[in-house]
Each structure stands twice: as C-alpha cells, then as structure tokens.
C-alpha cells in the first residue's frame, strides 16, 4: 500500500522534472547530405564541463560537425578502465577516427590501435611512435611557449613580485607549464618569485574546484597576486578565489577570460579544438597519417587570450611587450625550456 | 454497584494475531469498574501482556473495541492511551538509563519556562508526587544508578505524573522482595482509595487473592471467567488457569526421588569467596562460597537482582570476577578454572542452562539441528575434517524425541518454535553432554506445564546419575520440589542455607527479604 503510494509519488516527481525540463532544442544540425565521416572523441576522466581541456576538445568536434558535416559521438569515461572500452566500442561501431583526449589514455590508444589496424586514432598530449602505430597520430602542444608568454604577463601585472602556479598533478606534463611560466615571469622580472602548488596525486586533482579555491586562497595569503593554473576544472576554484579576493588568475587551455571578467588576466590558449578539428579535416580530406604533430605558437595551436573581458587588465604597453616576446620566440631568439624534452634528453 | 455508571474500562471482542497466525488473544471482552483493583491472571503465554499492551496502545489490535467510561476510543495508540488517562507499568521497565529520575518521569509532559525545559520544576513535581504517595526516590539521580525496586517506583511515579486514572501493572512483583511487595500493595490500596482504577497482571495466586477486587482468568488467549475475588478459591483458580488439575503425578516435594547426596559425596563444584562487580561498578557478589556435591541439587533462592544471575554467569565463565576461586573437581583434586575458557570448562564437564534462552541459550535464526549441537559442534561426533557431519541431524532427532521438542522440520529455524519447545531443546542439549556439573538458571521460566514436568524429570535424572546441579529459580515451589539444599541470596551474599524439607515458602521469603542471617544446616 505504502509502496504503491511511494511509486505514485516518484512518478509525480519525475513528471514535474520533465515539465521543468530546461533543454533547448536538440543541437543536431544535420542538414548535410552525402556519406558522412563518423568521428568519435573519448574525453579525459572528469568529462565535459571543465571549461578547459575537455570542453575545448569537444568544441573542436562540434566545429567539425558544423564545418565538415561529420557525425560525432563522444564518450566520457568514469574510471580508468573505461577509456579502453570506449575506444573498442567506437572502433567496433565503425568510426573512422577515434580521438583520445589526455595523456592518461596513452596505453589504451596504443592497444586499440594495435587491435584495430583498419581504424584511425589520435591521441592528445602524449607521443605515440608512428613507426610502431602507423594508424595513430599524436597531437602535442608547445605549452611551454604559451606559458612563457602568460608568465611574462603575470610578472608585469604583479605588484608584489610574487606570482603563483596551481597545477593539477605533480607530473612532467604539468612541469612543462610551470617551467615555461617561471621562465616568462623571470624574463620580465628576474626577482620575481614563483610559488607552486599541486592539487593532488590522483586524476581527481583535475576536477576539484573546492580544493583549487582553497589553494589559491593560501597562495594569496602568502602575498601572491597573480595565479596561473594548469589544473582542469580545479582551476575554476582558482578563478573564483581571484574574483573574491580582488586578485588575478590566468586561465588555461580554453579562453577562460569570460569566467570572471576583470579578474582573469589572460588565458594560455592551448587550441585542443584546433588540433581536433584539423585532424578531422585531414581524415575528411584523405590526408591523415600516423605522425607526431606539434601545435606551437607558429602553428597557431598555442597563444594567449585577449578579448573584451581582459582589455582593461592588459594595457597596451604590456601587450606590446608580450607581442615582442612572442616574435622573439618565433624567431628563435628566445628558447623556452621544454621540460619534457629535457626529461627525454636525460 | 449500579449500572448507571459505565465501567471505567471495557475491552470488547479484542483479537490479536501475530505473524505466522499465532493467536495471542481471541475475542476477549472484559470490563473493569471504576476504582477497583482488577487482576488478570493466567499462565505464561495466556495473552495477559498482549491484552494489556492493546489497552495501553502499544500493540494494535486486529479487531475489537475499547471503551473508556462508555466512550469508544477512536484512535488507539500510546499517545491516545496517555490522553485517556491510561498508564502502564511494564514488566520490562520503560526507563531511559542515561536520563535522570525527574527527566524520565516528566518525559512527554515536561514543565517549561519559556522555551526552556524547567529542570528544577520537574524535580519539584517529582518530589511532591513521591511525597504524596510515599514512593521515595531522588529526582536528580540517574536511573542507571538505581536498584530494581527504585526503578519500579520511578515507573509508577511516571504513570501517576501522566495523570493516569487507570493503572496497568504487568507482573509488578516479579522483581520485588516480599517486603517491597507489601509496600507496593499498600501504595496500590492508597491509589484505589483515591479513585484510581488498577489492572494487575499476575500469575501468583496468593498475591491476587490478597489485593484484587475482581479476577479475570485467561487461558490460551481467551477469557475463562471473571469473578469477584472475595470467595474465590486458590485451587479452582489454578485449575482455570491451566485447564486441568495440577499434575497429580508430580512427586511430593517433601520426598524427592532419586539418589540424595550424602554429606560425604564428592564435591564437584566449589565456589570460594567469589566477588563480582555489576555492570555499573557496584558489587554484585560479596564473597560467596558454595559447594555442590555429586548427586545433589543445590537450589539458589533470592529475589531477582541479588546476585544469583551473576553467580551462575561467573561459574559458567560468562562474567569476570574480581576475587575468589572457582574449582571444578574431577575426582582427584580441584582445579581452579577461573582463567579457563568456556569451551574448556565444557570439556571439564560443565553444562549451563542459561536464564534467558533467547539471549544466551539459542541462536534463534539457526535450525533445530544447528541449535541441538551448539556448544558441542566441535565434538568429534559432529565435526569432521570437512565440517559438520550429518550425525548432527541424528542427534537433533534423538533430542527432539527424548525431550518432546515439537518441530515441523528439524531444518526449521527455532524462532518459530514455542517457548516450551525452545526451552526443552536447550535443556535437552545441555543434558546430552552428560555433565558432571550443571548450572540451571530458571529452567522452566515461561513454559507450559507439560514442559515443566519434562524438564523437572530430566533434572532429577541427571542428579541420579551423579551430576552436581546448581539451580536458580524464582519459583519457590520449584526450588522446594527439586532441591536437596536451598541457599538464599540477599544483596550479593548467601544469607542462609536451608533444608527444603524443614522450611516453607514464608521462611524463604523472610530470608530473601534480608530478614535474618543464620545457617539452618551446615553446608
């Protein structure tokens, strides 16, 4: 009897929810004709909504849908075993290109590339040997170059001469951001101090905004007034803290300037969207090949964000100076340390 | 009495079934007049407590009606019962140990000063109430520090504080000394004189005849008769309770059958200056020394809470002691088993029929077979390299037959068995060990008379084969019928050791109330 009442109540609650459904019309704009390429993206653990890495990759996929008329699918793994399963599912379902997002997926992509030699794969952020995996492209970024530029901006904007860095995990890939950033800051102000914090040891470290905020507040309390984060959605907390404390944050991967206008100095743009969309374009134009592609300043894969949200923060002398630095890097006059290369060289 | 005033309480056609179709009370109707003491008597399991539970609203009836002063109670439940002035003193006290006396008593109708609970007013109210009825308690004391008798006073005060006009007392004397019982009765008479209506549950006929105005006899969930107490005969009441004459085959208690141990028989169990603390840190046993000889039943009398339970638990190994020695004799020399594990004591020939079969005696969710070997499951007879052997089934079947344990299937859970069958299973299992020493606590509590007879027979048989039996019972007639000697305990000490042939229930009662310290016969 009570059970029945409970069921009725649940149904009513659900009906209420569906009535309140906020969903906009389906985003499917499939007006295109012809045989369509089918492309799948397997996102990094944490999934969509990080406003940086994953969202950026997804943005690239959607752009390909719009511009190239492909059919898309995307998977959001919930644990470390699932990326491999998603890759398998998409390969079996006959997707032409399957892109793995994030260095955590390296093993899984290699394995999938081995067991599905007739499919094309791409991996973002970690190199895969094209001689061994000819059906596999790796998409790498010169994060150190972009980090150098935002580091220079940070040092210019800092009044205390003390800038901060919040990383997700204490790992080589994040060190690459940190080292570039520190070099940029010191290039502008050799006295500049860089305080570094990491969110944690597990993949969770990239989606814990509560912790990100606490870390940023700690850094602010220690005299830091600009913080650059390379920590996925953990950085949302960093930006929030900057807004609350009247300090500055620097976004990463995607343009995060809009998140707290006036408090995000700039964002280090890592155009995962560009890399994703270009790789898809290569497949559509039948010129995909297994190789390591590096997206740097030169390729437009890396940059720093300027828009109406940070116009007031970056004065034109500052911007001129950064542009000069950028030109020097492009010209090879400044060589920013690539931490990973140093590691490999060791 | 005229019919102008409707009875204070009327219960009409009350039926209550528990799951499994067990009928607790069936079509029971009783009426209680304003200002009388109405006793409800019956054997254990006759439905007395269930009926009163229905009246107090704690147990919802399946059908039937309750009327108070002629008005039907529309929405029965504890709250409504309290509103209608019904208060019940439960057999198992409904007190909160960590609350103070005052908090317990005013709970549900607390005096308040603004939003705040007015503790001082509460204590004042309790003091006034306890003065008025002569029920002395300290309102600020925590209930967990009180004695059982004091707890009962708190319970009665609680009911009075609720403003109850109708008091229900469920076996109130079970835990009291005769003196405390006398005090209780004078309180009840005082309450009656103030116009309170009292329902009194008991199975002790003497008490009922002493205090009640009207008696209702219940048997198997049905009313046998309601009659005025004046002129009622003890024997006929007893017959109504059990449905037949009291077992005529019962041996005369003054001439126990079986081998009576001589003073020279071997001492098998020896307790020396045992000292034990209660859970609350107060002394429970103050240097008790006892010896039980082969072929002897030593009865242990005493009001509940005077240390008998603790004594048996210490001997069984279930309770720590702070002083003294326990020796089990194996024919040559006594071995101090104070530090010996329970299973080792079992091996040395000790058996224990626990006082509470549900708590200590049985695993209710185990089958009859599994319970039949509980404690003996590591014996080679039942246990092989691959686990428990099928010989356990045979053992269970044998036990069931010998002790008349009625179960549909030996693989059924014992939870579904009646209390008598459960108890017979426990007794049978413990005796099947062929113990040299048997500790028997309340072996016949709450079982039907047929089961009592079987259990008594089994205990006598064990004695005749040379076992030493230490028997604790709150049923004095049982003690007198079975024991070769009776030791009386009072406040943690043995105050007397008596010869059952030369004593009476009255004399026992005197000692149990702490009325003297002497030893009638040497132990």
């Amino acid at each position, binding site marked *: 009897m*009570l059970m029945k009442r409970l069921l009725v109540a649940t149904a009513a609650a659900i009906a209420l929810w569906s009535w309140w459904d906020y969903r906009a019309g389906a985003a499917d704009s499939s007006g295109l004709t012809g045989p369509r390429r089918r492309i799948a993206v397997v996102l990094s653990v944490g999934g969509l909504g990080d406003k940086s890495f994953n969202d950026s990759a997804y943005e690239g996929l959607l752009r390909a849908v719009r511009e190239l008329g492909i059919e898309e699918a995307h998977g959001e793994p919930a644990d470390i075993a699932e990326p491999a399963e998603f890759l398998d599912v998409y390969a079996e379902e006959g997707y032409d290109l399957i892109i793995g997002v994030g260095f955590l997926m390296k093993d899984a992509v290699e394995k999938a590339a081995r067991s599905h030699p007739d499919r094309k794969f791409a991996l973002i952020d970690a190199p895969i040997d094209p001689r061994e995996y000819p059906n596999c492209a790796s998409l790498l970024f010169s994060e150190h170059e972009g980090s150098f530029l935002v580091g220079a901006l940070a040092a210019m904007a800092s009044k205390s001469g003390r800038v901060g860095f919040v990383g997700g995990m204490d790992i080589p890939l994040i060190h690459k951001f940190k080292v570039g950033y520190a070099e940029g800051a010191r290039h502008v102000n050799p006295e500049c101090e860089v305080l570094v914090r990491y969110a944690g040891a597990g993949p969770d470290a990239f989606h814990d905004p509560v912790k990100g905020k606490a870390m940023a507040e*700690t850094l602010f309390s220690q005299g830091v007034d600009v913080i650059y984060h390379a920590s996925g959605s953990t950085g949302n907390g960093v930006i*929030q803290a900057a807004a609350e404390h009247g300090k500055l944050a620097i976004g990463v991967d995607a343009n995060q300037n809009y998140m707290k206008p006036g408090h995000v100095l700039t964002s280090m743009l890592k155009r995962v969207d560009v890399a994703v969309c270009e790789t898809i374009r290569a497949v559509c134009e039948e010129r995909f090949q297994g190789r390591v592609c590096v997206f740097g300043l030169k390729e437009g894969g890396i940059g720093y964000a300027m828009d109406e949200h940070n116009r007031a923060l970056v004065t034109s002398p500052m911007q001129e100076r950064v542009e000069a630095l950028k030109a020097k890097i492009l010209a090879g006059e400044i060589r920013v340390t690539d931490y990973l290369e140093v590691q490999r060289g060791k | 009495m005229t019919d102008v005033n409707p009875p204070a309480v009327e219960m009409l056609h009350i039926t209550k079934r528990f799951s499994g179709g067990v009928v607790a009370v069936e079509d029971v109707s009783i009426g209680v007049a304003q200002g009388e003491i109405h006793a409800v008597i019956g054997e254990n399991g006759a439905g007395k407590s269930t009926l009163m539970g229905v009246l107090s609203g704690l147990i919802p009836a399946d059908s039937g009606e309750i009327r108070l002063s002629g008005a039907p109670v529309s929405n029965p439940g*504890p709250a409504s019962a309290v509103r209608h002035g019904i208060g*019940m003193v439960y057999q198992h006290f409904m007190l909160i140990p960590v*609350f103070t006396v005052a908090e317990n008593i005013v709970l549900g109708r607390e005096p308040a000063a603004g939003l705040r609970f007015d503790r001082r007013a509460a204590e004042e109210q309790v003091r006034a109430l306890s003065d008025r009825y002569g029920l002395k308690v300290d309102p600020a004391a925590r209930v967990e520090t009180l004695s059982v008798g004091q707890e009962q006073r708190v319970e009665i005060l609680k009911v009075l504080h609720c403003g109850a006009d109708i008091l229900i007392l469920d076996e109130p004397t079970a835990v009291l000394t005769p003196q405390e019982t006398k005090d209780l009765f004078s309180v009840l008479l005082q309450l009656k004189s103030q116009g309170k209506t009292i329902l009194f549950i008991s199975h002790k006929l003497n008490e009922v005849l002493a205090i009640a105005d009207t008696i209702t006899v219940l048997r198997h969930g049905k009313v046998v008769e309601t009659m005025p107490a004046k002129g009622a005969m003890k024997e006929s009441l007893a017959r109504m309770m059990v449905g037949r004459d009291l077992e005529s085959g019962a041996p005369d208690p003054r001439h126990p059958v079986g081998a009576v141990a001589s003073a020279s028989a071997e001492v098998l169990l020896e307790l020396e200056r045992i000292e034990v603390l209660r859970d609350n840190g107060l002394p429970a046993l103050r240097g008790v020394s006892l010896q039980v000889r082969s072929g002897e039943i030593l009865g242990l009398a005493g009001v509940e809470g005077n240390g008998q339970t603790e004594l048996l638990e210490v001997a069984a190994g279930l309770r720590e002691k702070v002083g003294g020695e326990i020796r089990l004799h194996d024919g040559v020399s006594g071995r101090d088993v104070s530090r010996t594990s329970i299973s080792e004591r079992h091996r040395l020939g000790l058996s224990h029929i626990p006082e509470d079969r549900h708590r200590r005696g049985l695993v209710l969710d185990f089958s009859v077979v599994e319970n039949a070997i509980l404690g003996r499951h590591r014996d080679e007879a039942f246990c092989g390299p691959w686990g428990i052997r099928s010989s356990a089934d045979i053992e269970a079947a044998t036990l069931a037959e010998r002790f008349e344990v009625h179960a549909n299937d030996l693989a059924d859970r014992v939870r579904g068995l009646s209390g008598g069958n459960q108890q017979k299973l426990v007794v049978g299992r413990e005796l099947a060990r062929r113990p040299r020493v048997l500790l028997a606590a309340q072996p016949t509590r709450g079982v039907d008379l047929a089961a009592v007879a079987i259990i008594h027979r089994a205990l006598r048989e064990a004695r005749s084969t040379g076992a030493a039996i230490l028997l604790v019972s709150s049923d004095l007639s049982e003690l007198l019928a079975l024991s070769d000697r009776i030791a009386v305990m009072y406040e943690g000490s043995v105050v007397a050791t008596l010869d059952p042939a030369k004593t009476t229930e009255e004399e026992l009662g005197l000692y149990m109330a702490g009325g003297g310290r002497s030893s009638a016969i040497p132990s």
Partner: protein
Amino acid sequence: MNEFSLLPALVPATIQAATPLLFAALGGLISERAGIVNLALEGMMLAGAFAGACAAILLHDAVPGHPAAAAAGAVMAALVAGALVALLHAAACITFRADQVVSGIALNMLVLGLTVFFSQSIFHMKGGTPQLEEVTLGRLSLGASMALSPLCFVAAAVLPVAGFLLFSTPFGLRLRACGEHPRAAATVGIPVARIRYLAVLASGLLAGLGGLYLVFDVGSFSKEMTSGRGYIALAAIIFGRWRPGLTLAGCLLFGLAQSLQLQLQGRVEVPVAFLQMLPYGVTLVVLAGAIGRSTPPAALGKTG
C-alpha cells in the same frame, strides 16, 4: 621560504573548510540523537549543492538583474533538496524500517546519479553547472584580513541553537528519548516516528546548506563536489561524542588538517598524504576510546 606567518591565513581557511562540515555534522547530530544513523549526509549535501546552483542559474536567467533574489532562491532550493533526500531516508528508515546504513549508501548513490543526469538534461553538461556569475551571498568582513561567507555565521549560529534545542528544551528531551529508548518514549505518548522524521528532516535542511556553501564558495556545481564531506561530518560527530561543542571541535580539526596541508605544501617536507590522513586516524583513536569513552545513543541504528 618566505616571511609570511602561517596563522593569519590558517584561521580563515580553517573556518571556511570547517563550515560545510559543521552544517552537515549538526544535522547528523540531531538525526543520530533521535536514533537514526545518517550516512545520507553526503547525498543531502550534494543535493543541496546541485539544487542551489540550479536555482541560482535558472532564476538569474529568468529574472536577470536580481542576483539577490536568485541567491535567496538558491538557499530555498538547497533547503528543499536536502529535505527531499532526508524525507526519502526517513521514509526508508522509519516507515519501511530499512537498514539505516544501507539506505544512506543507496541515497548517496542516487543523488550522485541524479545530479549528473539532470545537469545533462538541464545544462547539457555532465555533472556540472555553468558559473553562477554575479549571484553570490557576498562576504562579511571580520577585521582586516578575514572576510567570510555569511553562511559561516549561520553555521556558527546554528550550533548553539542546536545545542539549546537538544539539551535545554522539552522537545530536545523527547528527541533524545527517541534515540535512547523509542519504546519508552512511545509509552508516554511521544510520537516517536514524527519526531524522528523531524530530526532527519532537520539534518537534510542543514546538510543542504552545507552543500550550498560549497557551491557559493567556488561559484558553480561540479560532479561529486562534496567529495566525502558527509562522511567526514559523521566522523566529526563521533569525534565529538554526539555533543555539539565537541562536534564543532571535530569539524575544526578536519578543517585545520585540510587547510594546513595546503599551507604547508612547499614549506615543509611532510608528505601531504600524511596530513590528509591525520584526522581520520585521530577519529579512529577516539573511537577506540583512547581519548575517553564515546557512547552513542542507545537505540542508534536499530530498526523497529
């Protein structure tokens, strides 16, 4: 490494880390004092966080320009959502007499799933919401260096209120009676089920606020953002031996450990992991009775 002393930053950081815990712990305390184990605190917090974020964003979209109204709506939504989960827990535990621990675990799973489910269907974001933009609760300044969320003060105010309610009012006496000996309470006419429902409901309201605190702290909702704080609150209750004052101490201890490990990073060579473990270890030690005996309400967790 630098001349900045720990203390000025540590105090506000500890208070901020302890606030959501305190909300949940006080709720749990009330519920457990009434005899209902509340493992569902985690789910209640998460539900409060999600509903609060949704309300803030949707109201702000619907009626732009009134961030204060949206913030008020968020508070209401968090309270309602926490209460809804509490209602389910109460129904399961009290009406259906389900195992309280199991019900708590199931509800935590349920809320986790539903937040992702609905964030997907409402915002097309899996397990997250957009930024709250200008909807905030603001900050109240305390001296020069301390500006705290108003919710910190609410939590601080709820503490004595809860303490007064539990230990100084007739209602509190009845509530504790339900947790100690429900049958005894029932026999004197106390509506045990109703009081237990109210207690669990109170825990839902408070835990909902605890979740909301997190949302306003970071300005958006993200999947699993409570990350075990409901369980930590439970530990704080045990640490506090079911007393409000000591429970506060427990919450502050956990808050301190959390902020200390952030403060000390880069300063000392103590592995962060050990600082993170510390409060859990201390709770175990407290449980083991090494620091005084901890006695839960007698009827805690007993069904029926």
